[in-house]
């Protein structure tokens, strides 16, 4: 099967306008007869369900949480980009497009990214109209900040809770449609299969997580907005429930999986404190604006960080990248921290952390304050006190969060940080219309692979989720559904539903009847360790081949020795988790396979065989400028399809931060 991305012809900046101008429409009377299933209610799902409901489609939305408001989009801290150019600092749709393609290390599809940049401005308008309380200036207009090293201020934010506010906006729009009867909401429901009839997605099998019963739901189209799969690493900044199951079931039913090995590692997370750790917490990247990152010069250093003199500290980012210092992009900062720890210079009880030190920033700000007051005779302590106040104003909430989790006071002792998995750029392969390789099956938001290439820029995830849901799918879905107006609703008594439901039921029965000895959690931890060690920030052919063997062995062990207590037809969190971990194991294998195929260092990951003489990442545009789209061919069997990427506007260059 040849991949057709269905990119409209014409000039880059006219493609989306032309598409919208010529796309097929569905008349209002017919919309009422068309049913759409939306799986997941994060930014992409909630905005899509609400917008489609508003248009008049009959929508059913599903989420595994107890309320659509809990989806993990809520945890995004930093902000949302939009090319508004309110700051008059030279931003434009083109610049946002350019930065995103470049930031993605030239592995994203140009046309999709351009559309994203185009609709970014409407997102802000829509959110403000919904009552999203973005930060404002004293004049009453919206405030912007620069984020993730961009040269323009284009990030809109609501303190450190931008994701929450945007999600609550989309959630309220969704609940409004529920009240109007346009959307039917199914909470505590998990999608466990896609139902295909005549090669088109026609519905899903979902499990009511409270009663444990399986349900069949028909839809003329199915939208997967089920987020990313960072939890394949066990430890990540994802929510505990985040999973790949919906996307994976679609993959098994014929949807290709794009670039599964592209994951993003965020450099400033609170490090692991012990084996008991269940999740990692991110601290905003903005901390790197003022903090200095270092490790001791001596291995096995046991002194208190405050007692280590300056000449025995290694400010390794400043040393290696004098031009950018502590502000190198996420991927570079992450890899450098891993390198130091792997060499034995790590700090903290686990030795898997580096220091992020505010000592100098405090003194620097203190001196500025003293200078402003015209006071030159202050003692060091007085300067420090002044400086702490400034730092508190800027980063108070982050410092507080750090202290809450670690019990340490970051004003006094340097924070310990370590990279953690944060986002997955890979996902279901979709064309320009967000349709997967299965007709009528769409993927939106983090669940698809499309817009971020090999590395996502800060404040772009929220933008993409909402762009897909509010402004892309309402047009592109119509183009498909316009041809479906003659398809009547198919009864869930249809044999395809019965077969799918039986397959799901069989799998659940198999799982619960293994009655082995090991817990689901213990398998998940082991999977995470394999993927993190061998398919994380740095990868090698040898390691990846080993990892594939290990994941296969783990899969076998899982299916013969997992222990799931309780019953199927009841509220059973272990059973829910078991199904998700089983899918993550299979995905883990594919990730390693994809990473093995991609013999280049690119974006968030470093391939040891592909580096420059001085040990920096080396991208290989000649051989790897493609999207790897994997087709499932049965158990542990995949076929690779390549979608060649052409860069007509943004010409690839090697990134350098020296």
């Amino acid at each position, binding site marked *: 099967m040849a991949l057709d991305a269905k990119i409209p012809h014409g000039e880059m900046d006219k493609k989306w306008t032309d598409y919208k101008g010529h796309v097929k429409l569905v008349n209002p009377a017919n919309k009422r007869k068309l049913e759409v299933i939306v799986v997941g209610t994060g930014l992409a799902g909630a905005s899509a369900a609400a917008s489609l409901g508003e248009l008049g489609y009959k929508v059913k939305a599903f989420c595994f949480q107890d309320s659509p408001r809990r989806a993990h989009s809520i945890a995004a801290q930093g902000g949302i980009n939009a090319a508004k150019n309110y700051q008059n600092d030279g931003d434009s749709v083109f610049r946002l497009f350019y930065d995103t393609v470049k930031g993605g290390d030239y592995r994203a599809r140009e046309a999709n990214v351009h559309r994203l940049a185009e609709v970014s401005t409407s997102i802000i308008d829509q959110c403000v109209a919904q009552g*999203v309380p973005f930060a404002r200036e004293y004049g009453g207009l919206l405030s912007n900040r620069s984020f993730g090293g961009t040269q323009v201020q284009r990030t809109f934010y609501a303190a450190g809770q931008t994701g929450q*506010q945007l999600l609550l906006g989309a959630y309220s729009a969704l609940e409004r449609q529920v009240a109007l009867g346009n959307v039917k909401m199914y909470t505590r429901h998990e999608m466990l299969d896609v139902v295909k009839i005549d090669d088109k997605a026609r519905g899903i099998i979902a499990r009511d997580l409270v009663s444990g019963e399986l349900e069949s739901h028909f839809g003329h189209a199915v939208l997967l907005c089920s987020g990313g799969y960072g939890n394949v690493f066990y430890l990540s900044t994802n929510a505990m429930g985040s999973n790949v199951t919906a996307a994976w079931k679609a993959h098994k039913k014929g949807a290709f999986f794009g670039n599964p090995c592209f994951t993003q590692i965020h450099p400033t997370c609170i490090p692991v404190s012990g084996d008991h750790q269940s999740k990692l917490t991110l601290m905003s990247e903005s901390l790197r604006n003022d903090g200095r990152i270092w490790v001791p010069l001596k291995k096995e250093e046991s002194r208190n960080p405050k007692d280590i003199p300056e000449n025995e500290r290694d400010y390794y980012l400043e040393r290696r990248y004098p031009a950018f210092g502590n502000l190198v992009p996420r991927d570079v900062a992450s890899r450098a921290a891993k390198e130091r720890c792997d060499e034995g210079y790590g700090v903290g009880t686990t030795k898997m952390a580096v220091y992020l030190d505010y000592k100098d920033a405090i003194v620097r700000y203190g001196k500025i304050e003293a200078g402003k007051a015209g006071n030159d005779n202050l003692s060091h302590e007085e300067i420090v006190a002044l400086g702490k106040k400034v730092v508190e104003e800027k980063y108070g909430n982050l410092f507080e969060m750090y202290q809450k989790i670690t019990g340490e006071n970051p004003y006094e002792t340097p924070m310990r940080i370590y990279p953690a998995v944060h986002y997955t750029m890979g996902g279901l392969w979709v064309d320009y219309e967000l349709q997967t390789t299965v007709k009528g099956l769409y993927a939106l938001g983090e669940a698809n692979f499309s817009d971020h290439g090999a590395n996502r820029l800060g404040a772009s995830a929220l933008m993409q989720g909402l762009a897909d849901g*509010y402004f892309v799918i309402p047009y592109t879905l119509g183009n498909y559904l316009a041809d479906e107006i003659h398809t009547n609703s198919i009864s869930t008594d249809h044999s395809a539903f019965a077969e799918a439901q039986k397959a799901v039921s069989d799998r659940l029965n198999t799982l619960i009847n293994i009655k082995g000895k090991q817990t689901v959690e213990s398998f998940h931890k082991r999977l995470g360790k394999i993927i993190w060690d061998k398919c994380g920030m740095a990868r090698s052919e040898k390691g990846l081949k080993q990892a594939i063997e290990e994941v296969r062995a783990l899969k076998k062990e899982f299916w013969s020795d997992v222990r799931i207590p309780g019953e199927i037809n009841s509220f059973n969190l272990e059973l829910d988790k078991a199904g998700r971990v089983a899918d993550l194991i299979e995905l883990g294998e594919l990730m390693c396979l994809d990473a093995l195929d991609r013999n280049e260092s690119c974006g968030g990951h470093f391939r040891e065989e592909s580096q420059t003489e001085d040990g920096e990442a080396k991208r290989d545009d000649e051989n790897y400028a493609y999207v790897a789209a994997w087709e499932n061919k049965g158990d542990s069997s995949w076929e690779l399809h390549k979608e060649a990427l052409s860069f007509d506007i943004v010409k690839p260059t090697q990134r350098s931060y020296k």
Partner: protein
Amino acid sequence: MEHYHMNLTLKVWRQKNSKEQGKLETYQVKGISSEMSFLEMFDVLNEQLIVDGKEPIAFDHDCREGICGMCSMYINGQAHGPWQQNTTCQLHMRAFKDGDTITVEPWRSKAFPVLKDLVVNRSAFDRIIQAGGFISVNTGNAVDANAIAIDKKDADDAFMAAACIGCGACVATCKNGSAMLFVGAKVSQLALLPQGGPERESRVLNMVAQMDKEGFGNCTNTYACEAECPKGISVSNIARLNSEYLKAGLTTETK
């Protein structure tokens, strides 16, 4: 930070489903690290229960960073436990010491029936939002985001109210099981913003009507909700709800 280990006695509410009666059961956990989060301690207990062939304790949790609002335990007589402005998932074991007994119960409210063990059904909150917790603006209708300037103070206050995570600690804490802080926060957010103006009256009347229908209690201004709210939502939002409600009740023409 001093790191230590502890052995604890846990008294946890066990209830098979919404129909059957529940009771407190006692468990011992050993060697708990002071660096663990409270939920990680529950993870340890659950792993132990599974290995022992028993059914693990069901509890709600998701983001584990204090923002999704899913976690909901009444720990030692306080919603989300002993720390202030903190969710259960952010509570760490250094809040306890070796030999402590910890009682853990689900949120108790008629409007939040227990589904299993510590898991309750909070869909009443969704229905209250459905009654009016939104601004009716279809996708694509919006004017430019900077077309309407908003007083920074109002925008900030709206944000503070909008910080509510919908966890239900206010209801769980209130001796009357009242949801006024939750409703007040949403009504305030939208009343403070000009965009919320057109639906102001119907919103507050409909949301309050739905709140009463769900079986929540009334506010008697003990302010326990504010003290226990993990996001520090102010009771001034309840006052604003009251004033919005009174004004709407007096001026609206519909019955």
